[in-house]
Structure formats: structure tokens, C-alpha cells
């Protein structure tokens, strides 16, 4: 800490350069309207970190919130769900983004460090299994078939091994990188164990790579977030998934009403209890929850349905009571 004060002197020329370079700093974006309550008097910082899946959601929330409360600085990082909880439990962040519920060992870690938290489900997310537009022989896969393709040690490399009715077509596999929440989620939902997956596929943290790979290969198959499919509808075909109750196409309604299983899920934020004592963090979480539909839509996620929204508001009401 002493180092920083003694360094204050050194920063003068640098600050000057900064001032010259940015003589006028304009802030971008028109006012989005939907103002939060209590507005202009709040100040301080709110640190958000965690899942890169949830980050766009929290970023949009932060941006809208800052337009209504210019004094509050909200920052969003993308350390991943696991990495986010690690920092969260070390007390370094105020809110952790998560694309799954907190694990028991992460709970234990937080408890050990004395970090108490709340849990809010803020949006829905769906994974889509995609094939190339050129693929005309498959419309629907069962969870068992997906498992056969993706389970650890799987040697499936031709579509006719999945179903003898499929033609003799070489299979090219694309999927999420092992660090991503998408990978954790897909392996858990399909193979029954998080992290269990065959390894001889083309992994990428960047879903655009998967889009390019699958769209360029007739026998290609890959998986990623539903919103990515919505944006690449012209290049890819999303398969219906049979989770035991018939084929269900991925989409907003099927994810919301829970029929698109097991590849539909909820996204969470975990605010730290002690951070909620800070008025700016509490205001941010309230804003996030109250405007979750607008935020989800702007970030291109599947918003909560009426029932989920009601539950969310009930959670918020409970929280308010605790703090008043």
C-alpha cells in the first residue's frame, strides 16, 4: 500500500498524456430509458466476474444500470463459472456469474472464507446441437444417440454408426473447449458426468469457430448456445432433441416451458451478502432482477417465463425484508 502512495508522484506526466489524448471523453450510447430507482446519488464500484456465458447478460445489465446511475462503476470480467467462484469466495468480487448452480465444494470454500451469498436465476439458456445445412438425413437425435457420439472413449466416426438408417457419411465433431461452461453443461446433461467427454474432437472456446467448422462440413456436428444458433440460422440446422418424451425443437418457448430437456438451463447470479449491504450493489441487483426480461432480450438470451419471474421477484422481496 505504501508503494502506491510513493508512486503517485510518478504518474503526473502520464496523466498529462492521458489528458491530451482524450481531451474530450464522450460517453457512448443513448439513454435506454428504463431508469432504475433512486438514480443519481449512488456511487461506488460493483465487481462482477464469472461465467463467460452469463457475461453478456451482466454486461447489458451493467450498461443499462450505469445509464440510470452514472455514479456507479460496474465492471464485468470473464474468468469462467469455476474461476469466478474461486475469486468470489476469496472475497475479490461482489457478484459471481454462473451458468450452473454453485457446487458443494464451492459452497464449502465460500463458507470457509466466511463469504455468504444469495442466488438469483436471471435468464434461461439453451444449448443447440447443430449440423450443416447440407445435412438432409438427420432431424432429431435422442439423448442416448448423443451420448453414443460424445461419451468418453467413443469411437463413432460415421453417421451410420449412430443409426443404421443414416447414410455412410464421415462425422466431424466440433464442441466447446474444456474450460467453458457450455462444455460442463453439455457433458453433464448428455454424458451424465461433468467433464466426461471424448477428446478427439475440435474444441474451441469461440463458438464462431464451431459455426464455421460445422457449416463447412456435410457430416459435421457441434453444440453451443442457442443464441449463437439464432444468429447463424442461415448457415446451420439445429436438431430436435428427444429427452425421452419425443423430439423437441430448441426455441424460446421450449426452453422456457422446460420441455427442451436436458439441454435447456437456467443462468444465475450470486451476489455476496456483505456486498448487498452496499447501496450501489443492492441497487444493481434489484435493477438486474426487475428488468431481467429487457436485459435478457437485449443480450439475446431466453427471458424467464411468468412463473420464473414471479419466483425471482419473491426472492427479491425476501431479500428486501432482510435488509430493511
Amino acid at each position, binding site marked *: *500500500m505504501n508503494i502506491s502512495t510513493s508512486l503517485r508522484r510518478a*504518474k503526473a506526466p502520464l496523466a498529462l498524456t492521458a489528458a491530451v489524448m482524450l481531451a474530450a471523453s464522450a460517453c457512448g450510447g443513448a439513454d435506454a430509458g428504463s431508469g432504475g430507482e433512486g438514480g443519481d446519488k449512488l456511487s461506488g464500484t460493483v465487481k462482477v466476474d464469472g461465467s463467460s456465458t452469463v457475461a453478456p447478460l451482466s454486461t447489458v445489465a451493467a450498461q443499462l444500470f450505469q445509464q440510470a446511475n452514472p455514479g456507479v462503476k460496474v465492471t464485468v470480467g470473464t474468468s469462467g463459472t469455476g474461476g469466478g467462484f474461486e475469486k468470489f469466495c476469496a472475497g475479490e468480487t461482489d457478484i459471481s456469474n454462473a451458468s450452473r448452480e454453485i457446487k458443494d465444494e464451492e459452497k464449502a470454500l465460500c463458507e470457509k472464507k466466511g463469504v455468504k451469498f444469495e442466488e438469483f436465476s436471471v435468464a434461461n439458456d439453451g444449448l443447440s446441437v447443430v449440423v450443416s445445412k447440407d445435412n438432409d438425413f438427420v432431424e432429431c437425435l435422442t439423448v442416448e444417440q448423443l451420448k453414443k457420439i460424445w461419451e468418453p472413449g467413443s469411437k463413432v466416426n460415421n453417421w451410420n454408426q449412430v443409426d443404421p438408417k443414416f447414410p455412410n457419411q464421415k462425422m466431424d465433431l466440433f464442441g466447446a473447449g474444456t474450460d467453458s461452461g457450455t462444455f460442463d453443461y453439455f457433458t453433464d446433461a448428455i454424458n451424465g458426468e461433468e467433464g466426461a467427454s471424448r477428446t478427439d474432437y475440435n474444441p474451441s472456446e469461440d463458438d464462431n469457430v464451431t459455426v464455421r467448422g460445422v457449416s463447412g462440413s456435410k457430416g459435421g456436428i457441434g453444440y453451443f448456445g442457442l443464441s449463437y444458433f439464432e444468429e447463424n440460422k442461415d448457415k446451420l440446422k439445429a436438431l430436435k432433441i428427444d429427452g425421452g418424451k419425443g423430439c423437441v425443437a430448441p426455441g424460446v418457448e421450449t426452453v422456457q416451458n422446460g420441455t427442451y430437456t436436458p439441454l435447456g438451463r437456467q443462468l444465475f447470479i450470486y451476489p455476496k451478502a456483505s456486498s448487498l449491504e452496499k447501496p450501489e450493489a443492492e441497487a444493481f441487483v434489484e435493477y438486474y432482477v426487475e428488468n431481467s426480461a429487457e436485459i435478457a432480450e437485449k443480450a439475446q438470451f431466453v427471458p424467464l417465463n411468468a412463473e420464473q419471474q414471479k419466483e425471482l421477484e419473491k426472492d427479491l422481496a425476501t431479500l428486501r425484508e432482510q435488509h430493511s
Partner: protein
Amino acid sequence: MSSKVIDRDATIHQDAPRLKGKGTPLRERVFHLSLWVSLAVAVVFLASLLAYVLSEGWSRLDPRLWMNFPDYIDPTQGGAQSAIMGTVWVIGFTAAYCLPTGILTAIYLEEYADPDKWWNRAIEINIQNLAAVPSIVYGILGLGIISRGLGFGQTVLTASLTLSLLVLPVVIISSREAIRAVPQSIRQASLALGATQWQTIWRQVLPAAVPGMATGSILALSRAIGEAAPLLLLGGLTFITFNPSGVQSQFTVLPIQIFNWISQSRAEFVSLASAAIVILLAILLAMNSVAIWLRNRYSRTW
């Protein structure tokens, strides 16, 4: 390239009789050709990269890029101001930490240390090994020791110290080379005229070594400017709408911002990322120009 260096070579060659046989043997032509091919590979790749990035980012290369903060609702209005300023702050402090330390270390190792002593040799080998350590390892070190151990948190200070450690070996090695290139006779003459060792170093050796040290240091800082991996590990932010205001500030830097935008699915982010890459390249080019200018301005012939 330094024109002075070439000039000096040219004058040497002018004095000597030009040695060249009649005609050019095939071997020589093949050798010449291979030189051209190697050069072409480097230049073509760089040029095509530049052309690609410029064509992708051209539509976004306007004041929005440095006047605005990131915007995830309407990417067309977004900019990279916080990342540009974060980069300026982090690299500024990295220079402030690593240049004095690196240059002083180099002076010690070249001018004072006894190369026959085993500990000095151990230090040398260690420094050379450190230069080859992957940058992510420095990130782990920064997170564990500087961010958490010293309690500096995810701040400009932590990032600068981590990047300083990363480029310190390069600064030391290049500064040592520059000091070693100063002819021994200069030192001997200075000492013979009654100067102390410190006066010799300060008035003769250092001024003569400035061009080499400056070039090496700026190349080292150029490496630091492009690093994303160690900073990501420290908790690189991808959405931040304010500029650093001190060493205790949170920050993001251009490579992290570019990395994040590239992996967004919307096409607007890709052109934004390309425009940010152009900015990063412009900063790098500016730094390298300073290195060239310094070298030309201060280079001496003996």
C-alpha cells in the same frame, strides 16, 4: 534500421578494394534467392495481416473507437477508450518499474560482477532461463504473490508489476549487450585520465550504450503491450466504462478487449475488434519509431 550503422559499414567497404569475380556463380544466386524468399515470407505475412485487419476494421476506424466506452447493447456505438487508456497506464508503469531495475541489473552484471564467481554465473543463467518462461506462468505468479499475497488486488499496479517481471529478463539481456558493445578502450582511457569507475560508467559507458538499451527496452515493452494471457489470469475485465485514475484502479487492456470482442457472436464486434487491433498496431509502431529515433539520435561511432 539505423542508417548510421549502414553508413559506417559503407565507409569501411569503400576503403577496401572491392572483391568480386567475373559473373555470378550459381551457388551464389541460389543463396541470394533463398534470402529473398525468407524476406518475402515475413513481409507478405505482415502485409496481408495488415491488409486484412484494415479492411475488416476500416468502417470502425473513427473517433467512436477512442471517444466511446464499450457498448454491448449497440456495438456500433461502442469504443475502446477504457482499454486504450488501460494499456497506456499499464505500459507506462511497467516501463517505470522494469527499466530502472533492468538497466541497473545490467550495469551490475557487466561492470561490477566478477564473472568467475559461481553466484554471478548462476544469476546469469537464471536470467536467461527466465526469458524463456511462458507468460502464463508470470500470470500465476502475479495472481498468487502480487495480487493476493501482497494484497494489491486486480489493479493497474498488479498488472504493471507482473508485466515488469515478464519483460525484465529481456531488458537485462539487451542492456547488457549494449553495455558490452562499448569498446573496452573507452573505459580504460577514462580510468587512465583519473575518472572513478562510477564516473566512467555514468559519463562514458551509459551515454554510449543508450541507443542499444533503448531499442531493447522498447522492444521488450512492445512485447508487454501485446500480452493478454497473464493479465487474463489476474482477472482481466471485459466490460469497464471508466479509465484508470491511479495505480489502484481497475483496468482492462487492448489485447483482452480484442480477445473478448472477437469471441462475441455479433458481426459488429468483429469489425470493432479489427479496428482495435489497428490501434494496437499503431501504438506498437509509434513505440518502435521512438526506438529507431533514439538509436539514430544517440548512436556514436568510435
